[in-house]
């Protein structure tokens, strides 16, 4: 009897091990543990056994059933693992093939540059002021201490809309608007589109973009301007950049300076971009001319300020080195996609 049972267990194990497909294993289970299987029959027959044998045989039969069930479970795991492995092998694919289409857009290099500039000054607590592109002659010139008869006001440089109205030639008129609209302290930058009566070529465009800066507060010095612009230049062009001031002339600032940053391409050794000087001009700036402050009724002994202005196109050019300004307005995707971020 016992030998008989051992044989059954051996046969069952052999059959289970021999099943390599899920279906075959299921078949084996039915054959070994199903309603008509020998083991099931025997288990069912326990009740007919003499009472003194029931305990031992019943225990032994149940042990065998549990062992078989464990063997099936183990085999099931093996089969599933192998089938999964085969499935995965069938799934194998060249993962270097291109992916599904996810449309990729992007921001124009001028927007990226504008945001970079804005963010640097926002970090210093500045706000962003805006003004109209069709602007009063008064704001564009007179309020900025640019006298009548100045060549910039002429028919050759300025696009006029109506008597006393022009397309702003710089973002500086927003200085005048801000000074009238807001009590100092004032810390603003003014990004925007400006116009000149220039024929488009590699270095000129009738339309371009500037960022103006204006600070008016008590005790503002030229040294504050230098520190602010040095911070700006390092933020934009790298921590090693040096900044220098050259005295210059603008009607609405006095003293006026042009600001150079040490060349970030050649590190000061001299290259084509810095014209062998080691320095690159990035913007014009100065202390707000007392005439400009007095025109809005500010006491120039109490309030001082500085202003600066830069071309976004120029900054973008310095950072990215494209050869022709017109590329910025052609909107050729082959150009735009070169500046993803």
């Amino acid at each position: 009897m016992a030998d008989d049972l051992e044989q059954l267990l051996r046969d069952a194990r052999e059959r289970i091990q021999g099943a390599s497909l899920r279906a075959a294993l299921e078949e084996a289970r039915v054959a070994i543990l199903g309603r008509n299987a020998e083991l099931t029959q025997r288990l069912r027959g326990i009740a007919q056994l003499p009472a003194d044998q029931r305990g031992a045989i019943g225990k032994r039969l149940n042990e065998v059933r549990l062992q078989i069930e464990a063997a099936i479970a183990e085999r099931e795991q093996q089969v599933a693992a192998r089938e999964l492995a085969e499935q995965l092998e069938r799934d194998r694919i060249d993962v270097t093939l291109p992916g599904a289409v996810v449309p990729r857009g992007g921001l124009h290099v001028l927007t990226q540059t504008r945001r970079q500039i804005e963010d640097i000054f926002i970090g210093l607590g500045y706000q962003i002021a805006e003004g109209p592109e069709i602007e009063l002659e008064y704001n564009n010139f007179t309020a900025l201490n640019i006298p009548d008869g100045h060549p910039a006001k002429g028919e050759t440089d300025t696009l006029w809309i109506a008597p006393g109205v022009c397309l702003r030639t710089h973002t500086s008129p927003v200085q005048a608007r801000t000074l009238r609209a807001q009590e100092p302290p004032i810390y603003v930058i003014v990004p925007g589109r400006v116009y000149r009566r220039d024929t488009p070529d590699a270095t000129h465009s009738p339309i371009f973009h500037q960022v103006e800066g204006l600070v008016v507060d008590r005790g503002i010095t030229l040294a504050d301007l230098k520190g602010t612009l040095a911070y700006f230049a390092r933020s934009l062009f790298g921590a090693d950049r040096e900044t220098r001031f050259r005295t210059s002339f603008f009607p609405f600032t006095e003293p006026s300076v042009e600001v150079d940053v040490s060349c970030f391409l050649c590190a000061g050794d001299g290259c084509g971009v810095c014209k062998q000087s080691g320095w690159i001009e990035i913007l014009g700036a100065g202390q707000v001319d007392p005439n400009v402050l007095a025109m809005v009724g500010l006491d120039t002994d109490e309030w001082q300020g500085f202003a600066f202005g830069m071309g976004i196109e120029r900054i973008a050019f310095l950072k990215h080195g494209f050869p022709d300004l017109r590329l910025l307005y052609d909107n050729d995707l082959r150009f735009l996609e070169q500046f993803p971020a």
Partner: protein
Amino acid sequence: MKVPVSWLRDYVAFDLPLAALAEKLVLSGLEVDRIVTRGAPDVDGNHGTFRIGRVVEWARHPNADRLRLCRVDVGEAEPRQIVCGAANFDTGDTVVVALPGALLPGATEPLRQAKLRGEVSDGMMLSERELQLSEEHDGIIRLPDAYEIGSEARDHFALAETVLEFEVTSNRSDLMCVYGIAREVSALLDVELAPPPGALPEALGRRPTSALVTVSVDAPDRCSRFTARAFDDVRSGGSPLRLRQRVAAAGMRPISNVVDITNYVMLGLGSPVHAYDAAKIPGRVLTARLARDGEELTTLDGRHRVLTTDMLVIADGDGPNGLAGVMGGEGAEIGAGTESVVIEVACFERAGIGRTAAALGLRTDSANRFIRGVDPHLPPQASAWVAELLVAHAGAAMLPKPQDVVAALPARERVVLRTGFAERILGMPIGDDAAVRILDRLGYEPARVDGGVETTVPTWRQLDTTREIDLVEEVGRIHGLDALPATIPARHDRGGGLDRAQRLRRTAEDVLAGAGLHEAYTLSIVDGDQPDRYGLASDDPRRAMVAVDNPLSADYAFMRRTLVPGLLQAVRRNRASGRADVALFEIAHLYHASEGRVTADNLAHEPWTLGAVIAGPLGGTSWVGEGRESDVFSARGVLDALCGRLGVAVRLEPTQLAHLHPGRAARILLGSDAVPAGELGELHPDVAARFDIEGRVAVLELDLDLLAAAVPDRFTHRDISDQPPVRQDIAVVVANDVRAGDVIAAALEAGAPLLVNAEVFDVYRDERRLGPGRVSLALRLVFQDPERTLVEDEASAVRAVVVQALERRFAAELRG
């Protein structure tokens, strides 16, 4: 402004290297464009190989008609044989000879003894151009006989000259001359400045100046000063080599002794000078007056010019003789036969010269200086210097009683500089001593007063430095801005950062880019045909564009009222380069004005506007599959992405617009107030054809200011329900003019509050099954009670209510 360094050294001594000097000048406000050295390289004793020689004899080269075989004495035992191509010399002439071994300007190899057509040439006789003294190359240099034979040429003139090329800012008229730049150098280096050049010679003439000319001013507001001197016995000829050399190095062409001297004085002192042949001044009068309409004049450049009444002329007894301050007339040109000369040194009003020069396209050296402004005190000094040079180099006799018609000279202003104020503006210490020293070097005649310095503005700075703040700049720039500390002002008063509209605009940019569109920058000035090209209806308000008064060309004549045509142009360009998928957006201003009319009292309305176009499969194609072909729903999807991101409800209202597909165009209504804020649709095929674009083109244009206004001020928190939603789908058949948007709205209304969402997930048309003109909309309904779990039956009851409502309102039939 080009300044020969040897000339600069006439007025100020310095031993600092030129590069260091240039850097100081640059930082103080005088831009140095280039430093250029002209002439023979000054290396390895090269300059010693250029000698003064004398032509002992010459004969025609036996083998070449155009060459001469010469024997030239250069102070050696025997004359050297030199073959020469020039023909402007004769036996006995004094010349410049380069000996073998000499390195000529621009040469890479030294000169060698050579055989030219079979004859030995043991050196070279030089022209001015070969020595880079000037552009002159009609013959070799002939020198005065007084030069010692065999002496080194460098003892008599400079074989090399270094030239500083400056770019002078428009406010610094005083730097348009060598002496003015010397004054800057003197201040920067704190060294002595020589007195201004020009020592008046003794008047020797037999007759007074008035015997040759009488000057007068008829237009005093255009001519503040008119001086004249006259000279007899002028020997017209070439000017001394050194003078020619400097004039050429400064960028002007040497012409003759009289003309070169006038230019030399202008370059040296900054006051333009004009010379007349006294015999060619009819009536012996010169009057500064406005031209009469239609008067004519041939200027020195040989051009015939018709004058207008805004142009100032110098007129003689017969009419205009020259264009005042711009260019003289051919009539009184100095020539070989000139014996008596009248020298005019005058001051003309800046803007008038500017208008005349611009009208005639004549930006002469003289006009350039007058436009910047010439010191009215300067003409007598310049006139004296001209006289000194004419006497010295043209043998002239100066006539007595020069003339000077001068209006009241502007009073010299006194300005006090508070040193403390300067330090407060600059943010660095200066000190009284430094302020006085700097202002003294610059000619301000400073005197110490309590707390600062009192100055008298120099006559040459009266256009420029008349206020305390101007003196702050003077002191700061000479003291040196490189000494400025770098500080950052601390700001305590209020917060910074983007305002709400600016922040939302950035979000819009990011959403559009994230949706797969590239940002474009198109030109905001457009041509007048744009509305026609875009196909706008004849009554479309966007036809009324603001016009530019003085456009550069017809292509840039109007301020745009729509962004889309510029973007379509960009699509065309990209399609032309073979790109199928082009999706672009732009965020920029438009310019609204009623009837396109703008006045100083009524400027344009300039709303921030979004324009977008999508043409072709968005995102392109891949082996995995293609992006979706563009149609009206591409635009709708982008709009929904934007409005969804900003929390703005959006509704579309079908519309007819001439430039859009008649069956695929809609007005955009924003927010609960349904504010009309733009349009979207597919481009009308006729318009697409005009832009050479194939396929459906989705377009979208939206007023971003209105969009920003529709964004809720704040988004407040709502509790999220953990109760599971129940989803049920229905399909209703409606007439195909029923709008899906209306069906959704009606369903949500009828199913509230348990129906929390309804979406169209399928649209099905089949005339056979549904009947003509019918369409099936499949809706997914989502029911939820925030407080408890809904059972299917409760959801079904609400669904039945919804179905009933749709049947009632749209005659909808429930399908299946």
